[in-house]
């Protein structure tokens, strides 16, 4: 379980409050108007943004002040998820152990991950030689080998077309199920939420509201969400 206990985040003059729990292995979407603080919320959860007050508890452990790599979370950003000068295999390999030389065993693990996301023969390529969708797959392959409790996604597929995005979301769900990880993903598209999310966190007016079952919430949105969904 991931608990946000009276979390308060300050970024300049911007304030965001959150006070809720998410069950383990849940898939939650974070939605809300642009500028409401969706990225801020996941940034804080991952440890990239300091929290002003409150506690962040993951599986019984206080991780409020933990370093990003000590939180049992794998994050996918909007851009720059891969080092452009490393091969795809090297990029994925970093998820296993942060060194450049891997053991044979580890290498085959990387290869398995690449095969799993459909990049089996592209391990030796550089990111620039891959399409946008393939780059996202590579990042997911890394998340796969990282095998963390949570996968945090900050709109990594925003630039992809609808069909490809749907495909990637399915892959995320599959990877999460295989690694028994929870998913927290920022999105501005309600259909993304409907596609894989069990519940939705709605962020508006400086407050991140606790997760509510996706279908229920989206079918009967409260006024603020209704205004956002249009």
């Amino acid at each position: 379980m991931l608990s946000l206990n009276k979390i308060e985040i300050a970024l300049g003059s911007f304030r965001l409050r959150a006070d809720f729990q998410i069950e383990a292995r849940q898939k939650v979407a974070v939605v809300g108007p642009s500028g409401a603080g969706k990225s801020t919320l996941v940034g804080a959860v991952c440890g990239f943004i300091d929290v002003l007050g409150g506690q962040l508890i993951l599986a019984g452990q206080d991780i409020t002040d933990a370093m990003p790599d000590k939180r049992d979370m794998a994050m996918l950003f909007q851009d720059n998820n891969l080092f452009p000068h490393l091969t795809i295999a090297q990029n994925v390999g970093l998820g296993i152990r942060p060194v450049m030389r891997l053991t044979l065993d580890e290498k085959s693990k990387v290869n398995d991950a690449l095969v799993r996301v459909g990049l089996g023969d592209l391990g030796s390529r550089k990111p620039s030689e891959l399409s946008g969708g393939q780059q996202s797959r590579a990042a997911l392959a890394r998340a796969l080998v990282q095998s963390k409790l949570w996968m945090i996604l900050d709109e990594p597929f925003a630039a992809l077309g609808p069909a490809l995005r749907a495909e990637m979301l399915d892959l995320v769900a599959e990877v999460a199920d295989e690694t028994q990880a929870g998913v927290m993903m920022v999105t501005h598209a309600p259909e993304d939420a409907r596609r894989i999310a069990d519940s939705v966190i709605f962020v508006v007016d400086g407050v991140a509201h606790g997760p509510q079952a996706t279908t229920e919430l989206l079918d009967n949105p409260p006024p603020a969400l209704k205004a956002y969904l249009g």
Partner: protein
Amino acid sequence: MAERIVQITVGKISPRLGISAAVLIAVLILSALVAVVSRADGDFALGPSDWSAVRFTIWQAFLSAFFSTILAIPVARALARRRFWGRGFLVTLLGAPFILPVIVAVLGLLAIFGRAGFLNDILAFFGFAKVSIYGLHGVVLAHVFFNLPLATRLLLQGWQTVPAEQFRLVAQLGLRPSMVFRLIEWRLIVRILPGAFALVFVICLTSFAVALTLGGGPRATTIELAIYQAFRFDFDLGRAAVLSILQLGVAGSAAGLALWFIPSVSFGGGLDRMQRRWDVRTVWSVVLDSTFIVLALGFLILPLLAILLSGLGGLADVPLAIWGTAWTSFWVAMLSVGALLCAALPMAGWIATSKRAGVEAVGLLGLAASPLMIGTGWFILIHPFANPADWALAVTILVNALMALPFALRILVPTLRETAQTYGRLSGALGLSGVALWRCVLLPRACPQIGFAAGLTAALSIGDLGVIALFADPDRATLPLQMYRLMGSYRTDAAAGAALILLVLAFGLFWVMDYWGRRNVIAE
């Protein structure tokens, strides 16, 4: 691919003005050389001592550039990784040594490293033998003092081109500092260091007073001193011209080599922006960074502090006339900035949109040419038509602008290139070109860089003795000239006071312009 995009989208920046400016600069420098040659009646032969001067010049410039850039790596790395109180001030202060008149800086350094300096006092206290600063190592030390900050700023800017997500990714994956160095930092160092090396190398090529004073004797004769000797001692204009050409040749080759590498990162503005880092909490890296920051701080601040202290003591002795001189220096600096921008903006626009970056080499000409040669050449050209003294300030302004040009281009080109790439298509679609393009798009976007370049030029021209000594106009001396005159008439305390005024004025102008530029950034 990228180059093609540039070509298509930014054809609207007219290269004509830029090319004209570049040609004008080349003509200004080469005509000086031709003028000197035209008056030469020697046999243009170089003696063995000239050749040893050439060897020494290249060697000391190489060592100076090597140590300035190598030492800049840990300092820049530490500054990029750490947030601490006064960091912004320290980064700004990195500009200070660069603008000091040579003799002021040398006296400041000697107050710390000299025979009677602070360091030797400490060594003596602990019973160690004295160390001597005089020799090749002293020359290199002084050049590092001048140029380490420059190299550090160049590198620091490189760090800031790293996308923030890369550092988040690094944090995510829990990469160790050594891995971060291999994965991210080493790449940007390789990209930036050769260009920084070349820039420092060219700056040190024309060194003369530093090399001689700290070099400890005629062993430390540089090409510039040989040129000085040829002009003044032997009046052998032919030899002076040959030496000047040699100097230009060495600098030109270095520049040519470096332009393959010269950092194409923006090095102005935004320097106080600080990237958030998570990968640097190991005790070892904290100790390492703190050590380098403290060492660099001490190395830069202590001599400046010495200048400040002796200057404060001498302030009361400074004659009132100095304020008139300061005023002259002030508006000479302003006009130098104007002249610089007139040349640098169109040139930068042209370079930013041209496929080959080689044209930037023209900018380096001004830095590599012997100031004495340029001054003498123009003197020969002007004299038949007018009294050179009447032209002293005009020539000073031009030379200041020439000197600052390579730095200004280094600062402006990357931003203009990026702006052209990002907004070129939009501007084209809106039919923006010529003056409108500059006014609506390029100038506002490049504001921080323009402010930084202008500040640097203003500071450089305040601090530079330049050719004004050659053209000397008794009624309109500049601050450095007046300071030298005070020294030359035994008034050492007053000279120290004048040096402090100079330092404050130069640094103040730099700060104001830099600040102005950054303030004018449109909120995004």
